Every structure is written in C-alpha cells, then in structure tokens.
C-alpha cells in the first residue's frame, strides 16, 4: 500500500490485520486500526471517546506470538504485529461470550424496544449462539423506573457500563453507578432511588441492548415501522441535528444514532424528548377570528381576508407606519426573509423587530470593522480550541451542545477554560482553569480590558494572554459597544481568536441575519444604505423605506399611544416576553398572530392562524455559530400551514406578485442577495452545517433593553416548553434554574 505509506507520519506503525497491511499512528487501539482497514471487530463496552473497560470480551482477537487472545479495545498497535480477527479460535471465543451473555439475558426480543436495532441481537445473528446449553433458571429482578423518562430493565442489561461512562465522562453528570457484584451486578442511580440528572437520555441512546428504555418511546412501535428524517432541533440556538422517527404522522422519538451533524450523537433533554409539543393536543388546528369580542373558528380564507381587509384600512387611514411586525427566532431563514420583505416592500414599513437574545448585529459589525469577518467560530472549533473565554450565560442550562463542546475541549484536548460569570455555573465549578466570579459581566469586561483589572480578572487576563487561538463565547450580557470593545481586545490575543454569541433559540442568529431588525436589511446593511437597498429593490421592485423603523420597545409604546394600529406577530409571544398588557393589545385595530399554540398574545388576537411546527416544514436555520442547516419536512399536521404559506397568501391578498413556489426559491434568492450567505447548497442538501460569513456595518444598538436572554433552563424553552409533557414530567424540571446536576 504505497499511498498509505507515503501519507502516514514517519513514526507510523505498520501491522497486518487479517492479511491486510494497515498503517496507523503509534498508540492507536487495535480495534480502531481494524476499523480503518474496513474490518469490524464487535464490541459492547468499547466506545470511542470514553474510558476503556475491557469488560465485554467480545473484541478478543488472536495476535501471533501472543499466547492468549487479546482484547482489541485495549491493545495498541505495534510494528509487525500479525492479527487475526476472524479465525476459528476468535469466532469460538465470541460465540462463548454471547452464550455467557444470553444465560441471564431474557429472550424477549419480540417485546423488547431494542429488537431490530439491538447490538446483542446483531452479534448473535453474526456468531450464532442462539442455541443455549444453559439449563438453569434465569436470574430476574423487577424493572425499575429511574425517572419519568428513563426505565431500567435489569435482566436485559449486559453491563457494558456505557451509560455509566457517558453520564460521567461526556455529560459530566455522573448519575449512574454500579451496585452489587457477580451475576447480580446492577446499574443504579448514584443519588438515591431515582435519577437526579439532566435527563438528556444519552444513556438510553447509547445502551446497546434494551436495558435502558425511554419513557416516551417505550413499547410504542418497532424500529422498522418508522420513517426517519434528519432535521434540526427547534429549541436552543445550538442547532443540533436530530433524526425524527415518524409513524402515522406523529413523532415517536428523536435521536441521532448516525452521528451526523455538528452534535454527533449528542442531544439534550429538549432535543431527545422535548419534541412532543408537536404532538400536543393544544395545538391550534384552525384559524380563529374575533367577532363581537370573542374568538370563533373561521376558514383560512375568512381569517386571512379579514386580516388583509383591516390592514388595508389601517394603512389607508393611518399610513404605512401605523403597521408593525414582530417576527420569531424559531421560524426558518426563508420565512424570516419573506416576513421582512412583506414588511419592507409590501406593507412599506421598517417597523419590524423580534426578541433579540444576543447582539449579533454588533458582533458582525465589530468583526467587519476589524477586517476579521471569518472569525466566527464553528461548533467544531469550540471543541478543538486551545483555550476558551466564556463571559456570561450558563451554557450547561441554555446551550447544552456548546457546554458539551467546551467540556470535550477540556477533557480531550486539555484546553483551558476561563469563565467570567455572576453565578457559580457548572462549567465554572468543574472545568474552569480560572473563574472570575463577578457582580456584573459588563463591568467585569470593562475591568478586564481596562488598564488595571482587579483580582481574579488580572490573573485571568495574564493567563489568557499566554494562550493562543482562543474562542470567545459570550451571552446577551455583552452587547452594543461592549461587543466592539471585546472583539477589538480579543483579536489582539495571540493566534486566531474566534467568537460565538449565545442566542437563545433555534434561529435567533438567522432572524438577525435575515434582517428582522428595524434598522437593518438582510445581511446587516443599514436600511439607509442606498446601495444595499438597491440590491433588494432590484428583485423586489418598489422601494424600501430608508428611515429606520421602530424597535420592539418603541412598537409597544406606540401601540399604547395609538400610533400603531395593526400588529402582525409571527411565532412570538410579546405579551409574555415583553409583558405587554391586554389593555395595550386591545387598542389595536388588528392583532394578527400566526402561532402553534394559544399563547397569551394569541388569546388577544383578532385573527389567529395555526402555523406549522419545525417538523412540518422545510427550510433552513442558522445556529448561534452562524452555521446554516436544512430543516426537513417530516410529517403533516392537518389544519396548519407553514409561515411560508401564510406569508405567501398574505402577500397575494395584499396585491404583491411574489415568484416563490417553495422555500428553496427563497433560499436561492438569499444565497444570491444576502452578504455572507453565498453558501454551497449541495453541502446543505446532504445534511451538512454550512458556515456563513456575514459582513456589514449595522447601526449601533439603539438601547440596552432590546437584547436579553430568556434565561431558559434545561427544561424550558420559551413559550413552547409548557406544551411538552416530557419537559415538565421529570422531577428535575422543578429544580431552580441554576441547579447543578
């Protein structure tokens, strides 16, 4: 194999596995070297990235000149080693191990949830140990409910300790232990009878057999009965790829066993179990129109017709600036793009905003100004960083994937984590090299980059300046001018400093990128920028108002003052988020709401239309690192329409002739027109995460109370989580937000 010889490092080890010459770096485990050569060595307890166990003895291979069979998962490659993975001795040993496993393992495959995707079942099929010589009675312990979401069936457990390790090493929760010994060994929760953990379900996912089962999936169906679609989780801004399993137009479970996407197999409780809001009985399934003071069901034509009629009346009577639009940070990029097009070119107003959860405009502006627009860190870059500076936020609670990437950077690469936070967050307690506990992150930043930082900040700065290639991660605490200061200072640190701003929801970043802002066009050019406006006007026709519109706080004030008469709300709940009173909302001539659920805002609406959830539509979303991923339509919900369809219908009724037929048409326009979004579509289509490089010179942040985080916990997700059983059922959901598991 001359190619591999030349490409391998000079110190690479060459060995022979099953007659194939394999070259691997020194220290490579035999099982991994075999995998690279296309030879599968079966194993239960070995799992890449976790501690070696040598417990299941399935990966026994025969190595020439070694007397006993050796475990491929603990043996490292050595020069000249000659390995056989499939000779009779090895096959017999594996068969023997399976026979041992099946002595106490119940043969209830027809009932077991794992049947059909069980690693033990596969191994038995491969090595044929289905006939047993075991004549004695099998040991039995009753099944235990570890939590509302996780069950443990002792007899099925093969004690591979994957759950124990994934919880300890990868999740850093350490909720599992082992009790008793010999054949009575059993997996137990470490803190009492019940699990006390993040309920991420990684243990259920990683279990090779049906010992740990999921409370939401249990005994519902079988793996081959479902359709699988890879899409993107709709909760936090991390953008985890999730594979939804669908049967009869209902989501049955979510996981990512194919390790596709930026999150590998990781999902948190929201991603793995929190999709059930889609199946909620409380979903809006028909439009409702307020007549004579109370809402009543109506047809789509009536509802949209009424909305457009009132809109036209308001514009005629009070002018275009009497209309305002509030967008969502969960809807797709395409929908957000169309929403601002509706506002700017059809309704003719810049009164458009959304709940901003991180100041992306300032970050893009600062990086553009510094000539460093390629310094947005990708999710993978967080895990491979040498050092990480985390200011504000609590990623463990709000951004589980970011927290995981930080932990992996520390655990796998020995990265140093520097934390500045007002709370003793878990990352600060467990992973941080230096933790500066401060009263206020904004003031701490000023001190950090000022002349004489105090106390821990001084130590932190000194150490940080000795690091290279730092990834700076900050929450909504740092906004406006502070972002610019932070970027300027951090870019002067050694190496390639990169940045991540932590926005709350699935498309928080996309909403800002797509221009759901009163003063900014898609791609962060100010509305006053004539050239930038022309870029869009040339395809949209007409003209975009050049005066910045009202931001969300001003919109609310002006509804109260009567200057705004019509409000269109898409996938947002300002009544809750911004505390808009019923009285204020009642002053509107038209409150139009498109949402999944009867929220506080929807309850006050004149027209409510049922929108489709993330699982019921296609499009793209941008995660907090600026990576674009495709949403795929996995199911249908009778009665709902996607925001895309609703917007198209509104535009048509308002007299605009839009050329789009599918969200793809919009994406093509975005790729063409929005700076930084000229992404490779093939990569997106095959499920990749494509980084964007937005640039622009947005106007300065108008005021301080526009950017704030909802402060969600692991078990909350804005207005959506209350409609999820799985996010409310676990005991842990009732712990205070900062609780460290």
């Amino acid at each position, binding site marked *: 194999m001359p190619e591999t010889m030349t490409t391998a490092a000079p110190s690479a080890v060459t060995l022979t596995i099953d007659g194939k010459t394999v070259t691997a770096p020194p220290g490579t485990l035999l099982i991994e070297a075999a995998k690279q050569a296309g030879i599968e060595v079966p194993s239960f307890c070995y799992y890449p990235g976790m501690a070696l166990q040598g417990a299941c003895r399935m990966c026994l291979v025969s190595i020439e000149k070694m007397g006993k069979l050796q475990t491929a998962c603990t043996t490292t490659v050595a020069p000249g080693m000659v390995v056989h993975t499939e000779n009779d001795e090895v096959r017999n040993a594996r068969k023997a191990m399976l026979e041992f496993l099946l002595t106490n393992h119940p043969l209830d*495959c*027809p*009932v077991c949830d794992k049947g059909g995707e069980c690693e033990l079942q596969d191994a038995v099929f491969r090595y044929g140990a289905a006939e047993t010589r075991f004549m004695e009675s099998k040991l039995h312990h009753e099944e235990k409910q570890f939590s509302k979401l996780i069950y443990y069936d002792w007899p099925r457990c093969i004690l591979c300790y994957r759950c124990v390790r994934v919880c300890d090493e990868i999740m850093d929760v350490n909720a599992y232990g082992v009790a008793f010994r010999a054949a009575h060994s059993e997996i137990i929760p470490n803190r009492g009878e019940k699990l006390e953990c993040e309920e991420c379900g990684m243990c259920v996912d990683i279990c090779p057999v049906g010992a740990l089962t999921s409370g939401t999936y*249990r*005994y*519902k*169906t*079988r793996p081959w009965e479902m359709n699988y679609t890879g899409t993107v989780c709709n909760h936090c801004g991390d953008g985890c790829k999730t594979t939804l399993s669908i049967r009869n137009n209902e989501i049955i479970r979510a996981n990512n066993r194919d390790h596709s996407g930026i999150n590998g197999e990781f999902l948190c409780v929201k991603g793995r179990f929190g999709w059930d809001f889609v199946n909620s009985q409380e979903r809006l399934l028909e439009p409702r129109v307020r007549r004579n003071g109370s809402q009543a069901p109506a047809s789509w034509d009536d509802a949209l017709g009424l909305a457009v009629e009132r809109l036209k009346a308001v514009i005629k009577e009070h002018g275009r600036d009497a209309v305002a639009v509030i967008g969502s940070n969960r809807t797709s990029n395409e929908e957000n793009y169309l929403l601002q097009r509706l506002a700017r070119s059809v309704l003719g107003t810049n009164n458009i905003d959304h709940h901003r959860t991180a100041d992306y405009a300032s970050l893009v502006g600062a990086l553009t100004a510094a000539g460093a627009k390629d310094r947005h860190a990708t999710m993978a870059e967080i895990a491979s960083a040498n050092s990480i500076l985390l200011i504000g936020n609590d990623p463990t609670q709000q951004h589980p994937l970011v927290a995981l990437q930080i932990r992996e950077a520390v655990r796998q690469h020995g990265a140093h984590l520097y934390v500045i936070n007002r709370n003793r967050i878990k990352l600060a307690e467990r992973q941080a090299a230096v933790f500066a506990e401060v009263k206020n992150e904004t003031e701490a930043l000023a001190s950090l980059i000022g002349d004489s930082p105090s106390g821990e900040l001084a130590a932190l700065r000194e150490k940080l300046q000795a690091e290279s290639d730092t990834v700076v991660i900050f929450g909504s605490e740092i906004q406006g001018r502070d972002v610019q200061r932070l970027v300027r200072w951090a870019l002067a640190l050694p190496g390639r400093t990169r940045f991540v701003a932590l926005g709350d929801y699935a498309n928080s970043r996309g909403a800002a990128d797509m221009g759901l802002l009163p003063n900014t066009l898609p791609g962060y050019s100010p509305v006053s920028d004539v050239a930038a406006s022309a870029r869009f006007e040339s395809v949209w026709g007409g003209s975009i108002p050049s005066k910045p519109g009202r931001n969300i706080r001003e919109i609310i004030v002006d509804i109260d003052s009567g200057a705004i008469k019509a409000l269109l709300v898409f996938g947002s709940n300002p009544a809750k988020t911004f505390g808009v009173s019923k009285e204020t909302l009642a002053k509107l001539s038209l409150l139009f709401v498109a949402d999944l659920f009867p929220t506080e805002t929807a309850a006050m609406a004149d027209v409510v239309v049922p929108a489709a959830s993330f699982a019921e539509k296609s499009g793209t979303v941008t995660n907090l690192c600026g990576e674009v991923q495709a949403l795929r339509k996995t199911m249908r919900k009778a009665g709902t329409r996607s925001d895309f369809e609703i917007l198209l219908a509104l535009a048509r009724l308002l007299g605009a002739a839009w050329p789009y037929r599918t969200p793809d048409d919009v994406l093509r326009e975005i790729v063409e027109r929005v700076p930084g979004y000229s992404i490779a579509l093939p990569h997106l289509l095959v499920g990749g995460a494509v980084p964007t490089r937005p640039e622009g010179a947005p106007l300065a942040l108008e005021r301080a109370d526009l950017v704030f985080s909802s402060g969600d916990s692991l078990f909350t997700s804005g207005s959506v989580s209350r409609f999820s059983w799985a996010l409310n059922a676990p005991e842990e959901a009732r712990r205070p937000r900062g609780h460290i598991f």
Partner: protein
Amino acid sequence: MKNIGIRDDTVRPGRSSGGRRRNAVFYFDLSEALPYTERMAKMLREVTGTVGALAKGFAVTFKTMFRPAVTENYPAEPVHFEGRYRGLHVLRRDENGLEKCVACFLCAAACPANCIYIEAAENTSDHRISAAERYAKVYNIDYNRCIFCGYCVEACPCDAITHGHGFEIASYDMNGLVYRKEQLLEKPPAAAAKP
C-alpha cells in the same frame, strides 16, 4: 400395441411433423407390408387392448358411483376443512385469558401484501391485556389485500396469530373488509364457556 391407439398423423409419411395432435385419427395399420396372419393377429390384439382399456376406465367410474359423494353441500350444510386450511385469522389467548399478541410487529413485517396494521401500547398493572410488557392496542387485517399466504402465522413468535377456518367474508363494502382486533380475537374463556 405399437400400431394401435391415437396416433399423431405426423408419423405418416409425407406430412409435416410438429407434434400437433389436432388431426389425430383412429386407424388400423393395414399396410400390405406384413403377411395376412400377422396382420390379423395384430388387429385382434389391438381390439382386445382397446376393450380392456375401456373396461378399466369404466371400472373406476362404476366403483365411484357406489361411494358416498365428496361434494360439500354448501351452503345447505357446513363445510368440512382440512386441519391446515388457511382461513380468516384468529388472535389467540393464553390459558389465563390474556391476549397472546405482544405487538412485536413481526407479522406486519413478514406480510407480503402489507395488510396488517398494528398500534402498540404498554400494559400497566391495572390495565393488563397481554402477559408481556406490550400489547396490540390496534390490530387490523385488511382482507382486501390479504392473500392468506400464512407468513404472518409463520413469523409469530408467540403463536398469537393463527389461521382459523372462516372464509365467508365476501362483501359489497370494502370498508367492512378491514377487520379490527375485536373481530379477530378469540373469545375470552369465560364468554366461551357460556352456552
């Protein structure tokens, strides 16, 4: 008997061959090639052979005339089935009256006509349908599509689905041919015991 019987005309010289039996004729070979006595002997052999064959055939006919008829007098009388007849499916119960089906979906997976639809649910202590953890909440067989191949019965690990002997399902209404679990299920032992 080499020259008697139904012969294909194609063996005759001058005719085209092709194995067609359409123009077969019944004839005696009276060619002058053989001496007279041999010709006569041959003819007699052929006549006796023919009579013998006819007698043999009619013997069967007469013998059967005096046996009882095998024809089923359906619908006037009930039909008689062989034990392995594959009729309408029956979902069985165990000795405790619980449903045997654990909703493993293997019948649905084995079905070549894709006519079995199942929805599974979990047994609870106060709502127990089957002996195992899971039971079939919904179990439909679409007899519009079922081809009675018996693969489902083969696939069943619990002997829960079997073929019964029901067959009278002809209907003018396709919807009625989708049988629900309640229609397929064996009667509970208590109910069966009642007269």
